């Protein structure tokens, strides 16, 4: 019952998001044709009225809004996201070709920043008030408070441009032929380090702080005193009693902050010229490429919903009290 109502809830959310996705790009100022033709919309257009109408009809943009909306929804149900105005290719193809890079980048970063934040937060709370705690608190808060694009640029300048340790951008060497899959993986990893590091550093602060505070309050709980009274060691108490309880608010926060990860990804992909969906989104906004934007927003909406679903399931796994509701 619990699962079914959750699922219905998520489906309704997706439907609402799809509708907003349709209307939002159309509410933006600007004209999709202007960018295709490389024209400034404020300048007198060199296209005749007839030519304009022909191009708009090609994309179905001449029809009434409601009809466009219905066409969009029907197309969606068939997995058809329409054609990109700029690339003139199916939106689905444009996204899929970039999606794997974005998933690789955000997936790696999310797993690492969550685990590292939880680990460091727990260790910090453990050593509360000591040098180790104060040191990591100050360091993490300082580096995490840089804006993502600034942090990315700094890392690029220092580690790529100056030290030449990592490539400046891209996801792999373009046109390279690899002797074996291992070499290919190494090249991809080499390109992944800086953008992933940027995302990890930019996002670790929230998880770290929350885990630290959550752990501190858990360490003062009666059941921790209870565990000490049994003669259990401090390490065992932390691992078996404290961490699981302290994780509960961290999981909730992780679901609520997926959006920041997505925003961060757009900046990072732009800074490192990473061929992912974020980069595509950035360009498509400039190009007023409605169908492509809608397609990307659809994928973002679905990924947010999936992230929330994962968080919900993790919470159910962690907390028996929620399971029985």
């Amino acid at each position, binding site marked *: 019952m619990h699962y079914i109502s959750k699922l219905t809830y998520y489906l309704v959310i997706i439907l609402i998001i799809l509708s907003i996705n349709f209307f939002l790009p159309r509410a933006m100022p600007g004209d999709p044709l202007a960018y295709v033709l490389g024209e400034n919309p404020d300048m007198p257009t060199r296209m005749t009225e007839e030519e304009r109408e022909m191009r708009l009809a090609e994309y179905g943009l001449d029809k009434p809004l409601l009809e466009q909306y219905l066409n969009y929804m029907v197309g969606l149900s068939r997995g058809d996201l329409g054609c990109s105005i700029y690339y003139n290719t199916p939106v689905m193809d444009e996204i899929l070709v970039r999606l794997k890079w974005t998933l690789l980048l955000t997936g790696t970063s999310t797993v690492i920043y969550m685990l590292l934040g939880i680990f460091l937060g727990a260790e910090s709370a453990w050593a509360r008030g000591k040098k180790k705690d104060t040191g990591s608190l100050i360091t993490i808060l300082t580096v995490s408070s840089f804006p993502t694009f600034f942090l990315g640029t700094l890392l690029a300048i220092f580690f790529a441009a100056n030290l030449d340790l990592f490539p400046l951008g891209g996801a792999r060497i373009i046109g390279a032929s690899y002797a074996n899959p291992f070499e290919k993986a190494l090249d991809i990893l080499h390109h992944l380090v800086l953008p992933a590091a940027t995302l990890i550093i930019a996002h670790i602060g929230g998880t770290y702080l929350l885990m630290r505070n959550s752990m501190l309050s858990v360490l003062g*709980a*009666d*059941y921790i*005193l*209870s*565990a*000490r*009274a*049994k*003669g*259990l*060691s401090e390490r065992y108490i932390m691992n*078996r*009693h404290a961490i*699981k*309880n302290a994780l509960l608010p961290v999981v909730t926060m992780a679901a609520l902050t997926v959006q920041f990860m997505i925003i961060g990804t757009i900046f990072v992909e732009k800074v490192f010229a990473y061929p992912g969906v974020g980069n595509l989104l950035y360009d498509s906004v400039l190009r007023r490429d409605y169908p492509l934007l809608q397609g990307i927003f659809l994928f973002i909406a679905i990924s947010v919903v999936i992230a929330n679903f994962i968080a919900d399931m993790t919470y159910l796994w*962690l*907390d*028996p*009290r929620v399971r*029985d509701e």
Partner: protein
Amino acid sequence: MMMRISDLKTHFPTPDGIVRAVDTIDLSIRDTETFGLIGETGCGKTVLGLTIMRLLHPATTVEGEIIYKGQNLLEASEAEMRTIRGREIAIILQNPTTSLNPVMKVGEQIAEAIRLHQGLNKKDAAAKAVEMLDAVRIPSPSQRANEYPHEFSGGMKQRVMIAMGLACNPSFIIADEPTKGLDVTIKAQIVELMREMTERKAMLLITHDLSVARELCDRIALMYAGELVEYAPLKGIFESPLHPYTRGFLGSLPERGLVPIPGMSPSLIDFPDGCRFHPRCEHATEVCRREHPELVEFNAGHFVRCHHARS
């Protein structure tokens, strides 16, 4: 003698000043007796229990001696204390609802101590935990062992706390308000269970409930503002109380008319001069305001701290 506590002081630094929660206590507990420590909320009872277990914050200063089986617990290392806690001395903490880990199965919370102290493997320890749940009369114990604390009622949680405390067969038990918040019928069951389970053990029973103390204790001490004001065998306290505070406490029992003691217990930071009870005492005289009375043996085994003790 199971435990001898002498000159014990437990002080905490706080922003408002030093809290003298235990100041000063001397008492001895015999091998199989149940010793009741009675007092109002905030008199330092719970702190005494935690001091014995050495479970207080490191910033706490503790002075004096707690001799358990010939060893001074205040000089034991943390590693030594870990082998004593749960195995030699167990504490049944108050508030079972918050003292059980909400995300760990009840059976596991009992079994982990058994694994640690008795070296049993996971399976045997789990079986022993089920035995303990059965011993505290929890119905269908093997199924209940796999449930979480929120699935238990208040009385059942208290039974789990008792099972957890007694799991490694300790010889000394500190029970802190084991009947707090339970309704009368459940309270009677828990009292009966405690009596049965601790029959041949030494127990320090901390409570503010005289009716529970009367059922379980061999000797009773009354604690007021960090120190003992009277202690005697059960009969001595109930039939010939010597201290005005003890008489006031007895007078607040339902069958004696629920007469409250006037005034409030003092802050543990700033005690009144002289006798700590004098501002609330109807018999207070000049000497009570000036001189702090000593604990003296009024009759054999019956100690009292009062300038005007009379039978």
